[in-house]
């Protein structure tokens, strides 16, 4: 028999009759992360959410590995292909921003499943497109599903507590992004299986799209049937019974967008995650055309880029946590800037290489750096704001897609630049757009080049400044207070900052 416990901001202890498979904190969030468990509700939520996100990635990038066939069937020009690539990542710019609020209102379970189920038709209809416009439209609408990134991070942050939330977020995001790599392997294999069953080339690719579509639909069903928004139950029920205090949406948004750090992380993420999305779109065709490989081989090589996400992005998150233990937030920022800049350098190199073998080697190393940079980004993001965490995450996530849109617009549309030149220029732009990381400054911890403020600002000062005194009187700020206390660890070990 399960009893509803009181969770959330009120902070009172739970009734003891509720039992969880994993050890939990006062908010019933799990304090450990057990990868091979599917225990309800924490680990189950993890597996459901990363798998759903993975399926959305597979669908969004299902077209690129089959482009050599699709471009002949639909008579596409390089401009059409470029436009479709831009369309595929631009839809979710808006969707990612909205998703944060949607999670707040409906809970991550319903919000993400709704998005996944409503974008599945775009994938199914890909089978019937007859023109370049059709191609651009289906890629545009299918791409909205990438906003499930925000719901993944939101859900993990609701299920896992401080010491493990970074890792949970990093692994969930990394394993979701894996879809961009897996699809480059899956689609050519599915295509050749269907051809072997007797379909012509121009029909086989169409049938192949039902596979990602089905997986997307089924993963949404799994989320709806087996998932749960919060450790204590689902949003809908808890909202209505008044257990969760609702914050003023307008205030949350204005607090978020007025924080300059969120804009810097958005730009920087645009040049690590944005680069990753761009590569997902162009790399199979690049290897196919430049090195005269067949569809399957080009697919395998392209896949290995995205597959590095299995360990590279979580690794970035874990590396960020390791740096923070010793050097605090300054360590996180330095690690992020160095790794991302090196990623840009390797990208610039990649375009200059003429040999197939070296292209693959450089691409593999580059993939690890750029994906680790994504993980390192979200090592910093949770500390930028507590009140507007959703908004900052949404901005950063959206910024990733904006970066992909911009990059494809400038360097990969039409035939202005050859693909190789485009890749090099993208690397250079990456290096330039990573420089603003140097300007992120936390008065309580410092920035890359400056130490903490001489005015001895504390974590509490920083996070509670987001609330007005009226709001504090209503005790709305208590979660931020708790967060400020745990974030003292961002001072690092070597700090001489006096303990308050």
């Amino acid at each position, binding site marked *: 028999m399960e009893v509803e416990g009181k969770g959330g901001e009120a902070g009172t202890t739970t009734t003891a009759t509720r039992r969880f498979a994993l050890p939990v904190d006062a908010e019933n969030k799990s304090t450990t992360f057990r990868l091979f468990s599917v225990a309800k509700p924490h680990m189950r939520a993890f597996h459901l959410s990363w798998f759903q996100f993975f399926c959305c990635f597979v669908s969004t990038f299902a077209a690129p590995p089959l482009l050599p066939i699709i471009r002949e069937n639909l008579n596409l020009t390089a401009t059409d292909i470029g436009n479709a690539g831009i369309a595929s990542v631009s839809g979710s710019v808006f969707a990612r921003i909205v998703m944060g609020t949607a999670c707040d209102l409906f809970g991550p379970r319903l919000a993400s499943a709704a998005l996944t189920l409503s974008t599945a038709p775009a994938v199914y*209809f890909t089978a019937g497109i007859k023109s370049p416009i059709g191609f651009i439209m289906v890629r545009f609408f299918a791409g909205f599903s990438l906003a499930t990134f925000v719901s993944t991070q939101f859900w993990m942050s609701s299920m896992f507590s401080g010491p493990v939330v970074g890792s949970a977020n990093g692994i969930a995001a990394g394993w979701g992004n894996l879809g961009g790599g897996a699809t480059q392997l899956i689609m050519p294999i599915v295509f050749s299986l269907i051809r072997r069953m007797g379909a012509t080339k121009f*029909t086989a690719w169409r049938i192949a799209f039902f596979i990602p579509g089905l997986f997307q639909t089924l993963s949404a069903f799994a989320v709806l049937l087996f998932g749960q928004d919060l450790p204590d139950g689902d949003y809908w029920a808890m909202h209505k019974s008044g257990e969760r205090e609702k914050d003023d949406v307008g205030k949350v948004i204005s607090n978020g967008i007025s924080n300059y750090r969120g804009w810097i992380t958005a730009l920087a993420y645009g040049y690590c995650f944005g680069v990753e999305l761009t590569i997902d779109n162009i790399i199979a065709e690049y290897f196919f055309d430049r090195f005269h490989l067949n569809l399957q081989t080009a697919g395998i090589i392209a896949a290995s880029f995205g597959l590095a996400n299995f360990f590279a992005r979580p690794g970035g998150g874990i590396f960020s946590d390791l740096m923070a233990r010793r050097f605090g937030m300054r360590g996180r920022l330095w690690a992020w800037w160095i790794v991302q800049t090196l990623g840009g350098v390797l990208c610039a190199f990649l375009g200059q290489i003429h040999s*197939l073998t070296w292209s693959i080697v450089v691409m593999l190393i580059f993939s690890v750096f750029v994906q680790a940079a994504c993980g390192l980004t979200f090592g910093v993001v949770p500390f930028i704001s507590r009140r507007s965490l959703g908004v900052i995450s949404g901005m950063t996530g959206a910024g990733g897609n904006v970066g992909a849109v911009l990059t494809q617009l400038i360097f990969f549309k039409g035939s202005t630049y050859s693909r190789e030149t485009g890749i090099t220029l993208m690397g250079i732009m990456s290096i330039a757009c990573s420089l603003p990381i140097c300007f992120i400054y936390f008065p309580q911890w410092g920035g890359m080049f400056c130490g903490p403020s001489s005015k001895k600002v504390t974590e509490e000062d920083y996070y509670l400044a987001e609330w007005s005194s009226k709001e504090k009187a209503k005790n709305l700020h208590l979660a931020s207070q708790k967060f400020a206390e745990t974030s003292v660890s961002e001072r690092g070990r070597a700090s001489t900052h006096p303990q308050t």
Partner: protein
Amino acid sequence: MHPFFSSKSIFLLPKFQNSTMTIHTLLFASLLIFSFIHSCRGGNKDRLFTELQNLIEVTTKPMQDGVVLEAGKDMVTVKWKLKSSAKVDADATFKTIQVKLCYAPISQVDRPWRKTHNELLKDKTCPYEIVSKPYDKTPQSLDWTVELDIPTGTYFVRVYGIDGDGHEVAYGQSSDEGRTTNLFSIQAISGGHVSLDIASILFSVFSVVSLLVFFVKEKKKAKLEQRE
């Protein structure tokens, strides 16, 4: 404080890295071997199109003039023979004759994967082989049905004379040097089927309807819990 890096999970992490590393090493090794084989097959990379002599006369006659040919249905009659202006024994080195379908410049616009390169190995102008047969001195003719996987575009036909080493030594084409005359158009099959369209609609409706069903169920559940 429950640290993530408990003794058990420390063992988990290197395990992951090892298995992925092994996969990557295997992938890398197999690709190295593949590219080694690939580069061995390269041969003489500097053979240029401009070095070939135009010794073969090629004519094409589509089934119907002035009409767009349909892939899988319509035919083109291709005829080729050694030019009467060619020197005696100019075709002594010919072992095989290869007839190819080539893109006209208008179909290459804004499509870098169809670009014309002077280096024969890089050239993407003629990707489709119509026929390849041993060289016969007598004039040849072939009725070719446009294959199902030919894309929409404007085309001409080129014939290569190939020597015993597999290298092109001479060519001929049905169009002029600028590849602007005597072209014919092909319309590809759409590849679509009514059954695919119906399946798309069915699955899409299923997805959206099940979403609505779930939403309604959730609302009902919430109302029930509120009343309790």
